[in-house]
């Protein structure tokens, strides 16, 4: 139905369960379906434990799905391994190696597409001595080395799990710039999870909102935002046929976040919500029914 060649990631009925089937089966992710076009910078947002890390690990081929399928770069995660970069939340690196040895390991393991200059530049920008051992580095410095390793690989798809969590604001800003220029120069698709929504606004153009192991919202950020509206008006105003994501009544005043279906009554002062308002609205109300903007639906809109 869709041009799968242009997709960086595609999930269908994807599910992953941890623990034994009979003894307390815990689904980290279930019934997950979405499509991510290539060349996007996609934000994956959700609560702690919502399934963001599981989704990224499945895409990187580090886990196998319990049910459903996930395809990356038009193939299965195992075959795409050489073209996918991944930095997990823990940023594991070999503590006994030096920074230079760590980068040399990357060169040894990616003989065809290793960009040594990029790796060395990212490390040098952090004033790191290539001869220092990984075990002597701080959390933020380790993040920098992990990102250098992932970026020098020149991946087509870069999966980053909470990449900026332990960086200071300056390093965060600088490395975000490095990521964005990588995306712009090489057309790299970047998928990054975070719970700092402000960090994603402005740099991401695609959104994947995960709640309780399911995709609750997915699509281009601009489309998603315009599909919703922030309303305010007198209490008791009927909001049907729009889907209410969140509503609050203060005295006689009603404020609501709705997903539009049809024209909005002008007396409710409709306004486009900010990304943060939208994400928080969804996160605060996990009960709201699953809404997904698929690319085809978006094209029709």
């Amino acid at each position, binding site marked *: 139905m869709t041009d799968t060649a242009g997709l960086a990631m595609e999930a269908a009925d994807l599910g992953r369960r941890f623990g034994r089937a009979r003894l307390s089966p815990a689904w980290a992710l279930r019934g997950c379906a979405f499509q991510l076009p290539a060349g996007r910078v996609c934000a994956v947002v959700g609560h702690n434990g919502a399934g963001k890390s599981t989704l990224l690990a499945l895409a990187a*081929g580090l*886990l*196998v799905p319990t049910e459903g399928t996930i395809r990356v770069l038009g193939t299965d995660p*195992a075959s795409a391994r050489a073209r996918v970069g991944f930095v997990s939340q823990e940023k*594991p690196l070999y503590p006994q190696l030096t920074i230079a040895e760590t980068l040399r390991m990357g060169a*040894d*393991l*990616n*003989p065809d597409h290793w960009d040594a200059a990029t790796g060395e530049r990212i490390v040098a920008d952090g004033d790191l001595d290539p001869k220092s051992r990984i075990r002597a580095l701080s959390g933020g410095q380790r993040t920098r080395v992990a990102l250098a390793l992932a970026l020098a690989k020149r991946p087509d798809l870069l999966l980053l799990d909470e990449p900026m969590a332990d960086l200071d604001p300056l390093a965060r800003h600088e490395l975000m710039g490095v990521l964005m220029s990588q995306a712009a120069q090489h057309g790299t698709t970047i998928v990054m999870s975070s719970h700092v929504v402000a960090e994603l606004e402005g740099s991401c153009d695609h959104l994947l909102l995960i709640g309780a192991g399911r995709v609750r919202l997915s699509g281009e950020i601009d489309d998603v935002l315009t599909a919703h509206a922030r309303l305010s008006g007198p209490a008791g105003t009927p909001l049907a046929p729009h889907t209410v994501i969140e509503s609050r009544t203060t005295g006689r005043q009603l404020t609501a976040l709705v997903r539009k279906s049809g024209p909005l009554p002008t007396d409710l002062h409709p306004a486009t919500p900010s990304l943060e308002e939208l994400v928080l609205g969804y996160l605060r109300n996990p009960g709201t029914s699953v809404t997904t903007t698929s690319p085809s639906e978006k094209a029709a809109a």
Partner: protein
Amino acid sequence: MTAARLPRVVLRLHRTALIVWTLFVLGAVAFLVWLNEVEADRVQAQTTLCRHASTYCANVFASLDYSSPMGWISSVVYYSFWGVAAWAGAALIGRELESGTAQLAWTQGVSPTRWLATKLALPALALTVGGTLFVFVFRWGWSAHRDLMGDDWTFNDVFAARGPALVAWSLCALAVGTLTALLLRRSLPALAVSVSVMVVLNRYMEKHRTDLWPNTPTDRSRHPASHFWPMNLIETGILLTIAALSTTAAFWSLRRRTA
């Protein structure tokens, strides 16, 4: 596409272990050579002196200077597979899974299967080369001065160290340690379990070694020396079978978990 230089990476990661193993084997071999080429002659001279002495002889136990270190060397090298089991469970695989560094290799374009294959092949090669070298030198040393020794071929360490069983024990320990680490995914529990499994297996095998080959009906208590090779080869076969099964199970459990 150029193949990834994974062996080089694995060697860089485990160079300390390789250096320790090399020094251990070379040290044991050098000690054996010194004992048989230098120490044995001195000890022999002293015991001969004592045999002809008519009065009190201070060197009556001189042969112990030779036989006791000989026994120590074979015992230490034979039981070094405990160390191999501990290392394979904790350092080679367990630590990588516990800290997540294995995933680093798997996302640098190396499939988990290739990663495990390389991680097993290089130590297996080092253990086979080192163990074989020791076995040959020990066979020479052990038979060189039988008159100074009080042991015989049925002693546990001598039995293992004079044939391929010595190498088989270390390969079995490597495979068992790897499987335990893959199942437990934590280094300390993997270390404890793999060493325990190998100690129990070893006690069991040592107890039942005499049953490995049918004895002559006239003498049920002792095996003739000609039974050494069949017994040693059967023990080697059993250990290599356990190693192969453990390795298969290790690959299976890894394949089941990762793409």
